[in-house]
């Protein structure tokens, strides 16, 4: 009843292929954006911004990147952490080379470096796929981690082998560094993520996205209808790594303010993969839902005992968090193997017919 597209006729191909063909969707997205851009900055506490929303947005972008590769093109990758690291270190080097260039521009540029590296490590995908490819991408992960510590040039010969974020301003407002306010950083992260995800959505409904999905669904058939597999797969690696790289740069510059090789280790890669699969393979919405769940749940669990007045040791809480998260992952996979995004679709369907069962 609430969600009915009856009466919304599409009279042109353009309308049929629109990003959001249904009015309710358009309204919904507008409301979400309004809340995210206006209501949240006005009301949220610094803790909510710094430790919940900014991380979720950054991780969502990385998850989106991985989703383009794994969910849309069907290539499983465990090198996400490494590609995020490339973006972060590239951005750091760029700020030392071009200290006066706008930091947001540099963050976006660093994505291209990640894309280049990602393409190189995507080369094995020409010969292998499935879990074999996943293991091959682990090589990228470990090799890149090693490079981040072994090439001192990358971190400007810092004794602590870490990169620190200098304070950068934009229109007289601190954007990065310790003096930048949470709201500023949140808005910048939100804008970048919104813009890039919009781009991804457009990419997916166009030719490129369709070739990717064709490769995912059946590579032989895709080849037969004239899709060049190698270029398509490598492009997927490049675009995916671009997103991961930008996410990595944002993670350092707009969220943590500091990073070292270990920040981009194998666990980071796994975490992003969780998000993609729990959220839903092949769904941009899923990337956000997955990131929110995987990042948000431990925070909720950590604070829940306090809130409920229980006194549980923090280590015990953390250990239980592991168990609960694990059980939840299994539970979600059993209840809905297609991820949270699929739940949303089912929900939409229910809304469409409510209050009648059919």
């Amino acid at each position, binding site marked *: 009843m609430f969600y009915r597209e009856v009466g919304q006729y599409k009279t042109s191909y353009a309308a049929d292929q629109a990003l959001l063909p249904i009015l309710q969707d358009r309204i919904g997205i507008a409301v979400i954006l309004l809340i995210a851009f206006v209501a949240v900055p006005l009301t949220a506490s610094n803790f909510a911004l710094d430790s919940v929303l900014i991380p979720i947005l950054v991780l969502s972008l990385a998850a989106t990147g991985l989703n383009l590769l794994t969910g849309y093109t069907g290539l499983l990758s465990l090198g996400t952490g490494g590609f995020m690291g490339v973006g972060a270190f590239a951005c750091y080097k760029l700020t030392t080379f071009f200290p006066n260039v706008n930091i947001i521009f540099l963050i976006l540029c660093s994505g291209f470096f990640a894309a280049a590296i990602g393409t190189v490590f995507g080369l094995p995908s020409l010969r292998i796929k499935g879990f074999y490819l996943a293991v091959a991408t*682990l*090589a990228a992960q*470990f090799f890149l*981690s*090693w490079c981040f510590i*072994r090439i001192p040039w990358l971190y400007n010969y810092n004794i602590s082998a870490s990169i620190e974020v200098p304070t950068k301003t934009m229109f007289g407002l601190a954007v990065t560094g310790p003096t930048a306010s949470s709201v500023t950083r949140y808005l910048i992260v939100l804008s970048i993520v919104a813009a890039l995800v919009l781009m991804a959505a457009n990419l997916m409904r166009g030719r490129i996205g369709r070739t990717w999905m064709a490769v995912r669904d059946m590579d032989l058939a895709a080849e037969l209808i004239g899709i060049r597999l190698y270029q398509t797969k490598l492009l997927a690696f490049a675009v995916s790594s671009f997103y991961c790289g930008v996410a990595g740069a944002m993670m350092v510059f707009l969220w943590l303010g500091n990073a070292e090789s270990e920040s981009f280790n194998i666990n980071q890669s796994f975490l992003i993969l969780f998000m993609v699969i729990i959220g839903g393979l092949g769904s941009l919405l899923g990337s956000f839902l997955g990131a929110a769940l995987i990042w948000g749940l431990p925070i909720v669990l950590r604070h829940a005992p306090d809130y409920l007045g229980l006194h549980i040791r923090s280590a015990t809480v953390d250990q239980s968090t592991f168990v609960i998260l*694990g059980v939840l992952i299994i539970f979600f996979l059993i209840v809905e193997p297609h991820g949270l995004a699929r739940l949303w679709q089912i929900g939409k369907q229910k809304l469409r017919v409510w209050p009648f069962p059919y």
Partner: protein
Amino acid sequence: MHLLYSIFVDPFMQMGHAPDLLVQTLWDGLVSGVLYALIALGFVLIFKASGVFNFAQGIMVVFAALTLVGLNEHGVPAYVALALTVVVMLVLAVAVERAILRPLVNQPEIILFMATFGLTYVLIGLGELIFGGDPKVMISGELGLPSGSYRINMLGGYVQLQKIDIAAAIIASLMVAGLGIVFNRTRIGRALRAVADSHRAALSVGISLEQIWVVVWFAAGVVALATGIMWGARSNVSFALEIIALKALPVLILGGFTSIPGAIVGGLIIGVGEKMGEFYWGPLVGGGIESWFAYVIALVFLLFRPQGLFGERIIERL
């Protein structure tokens, strides 16, 4: 020129100059290769029978060793603890089958893969909740495992063989032989191979998939326990071991996901290759290349032989 020399000539000169070190390197490589092979074996068993890429194999190693040591700490005699740990692994296998495999039957492999991630988290959390996060010393003495080493003077130097490593090699061989006998000679082994060939055909002749799954997960659990004891005796039992278990993955590329001989030979190649690489070529780039060198070996190998060591050409890798 100098670079070429240090890559292609110098390492071999070193091998010639100190043949005892070469032998020692080979031996150390073989020993860690055995352990990689054991972890890979656990993967292969499960993948063959249920098509699950079991990411939790690494944590099962830690969990099994931790259970063993933890029980012993609570006053259970070593051998009783060993038996109890085997029971725990059986319970785990049944639980996995009931709670994960059965409800997820017929799902795409990536979903099953993710489910084993969930299992990993559960095992990490449970292990730390029950036994605490501090690392434990493996009770190798109580289990009757030897300690100390043999020192063999040879080739103008000496080679040191740890008794525990020799024991590890023997136990691993016995285990592989035992598995081989089980697979080839027993009813359940034949059923297992039938399942590996085709689920549906096996089902249609009345083989119970559920039972087979419990059996392979249990077998993988026992293999994990053996690996945990061996590796625990070499360093100690802690959650950091889980990362080492990832080393089994390049072994799998090399040997194939479905081949038991592949896992063993692959493990040995990776073990020897990475020790040789670290020892002779590592210093060129400052050392510490072991973390990724194994993957490079596997990838280079893949370029020439994409089907793996013993893999069949038709499998979905090309």
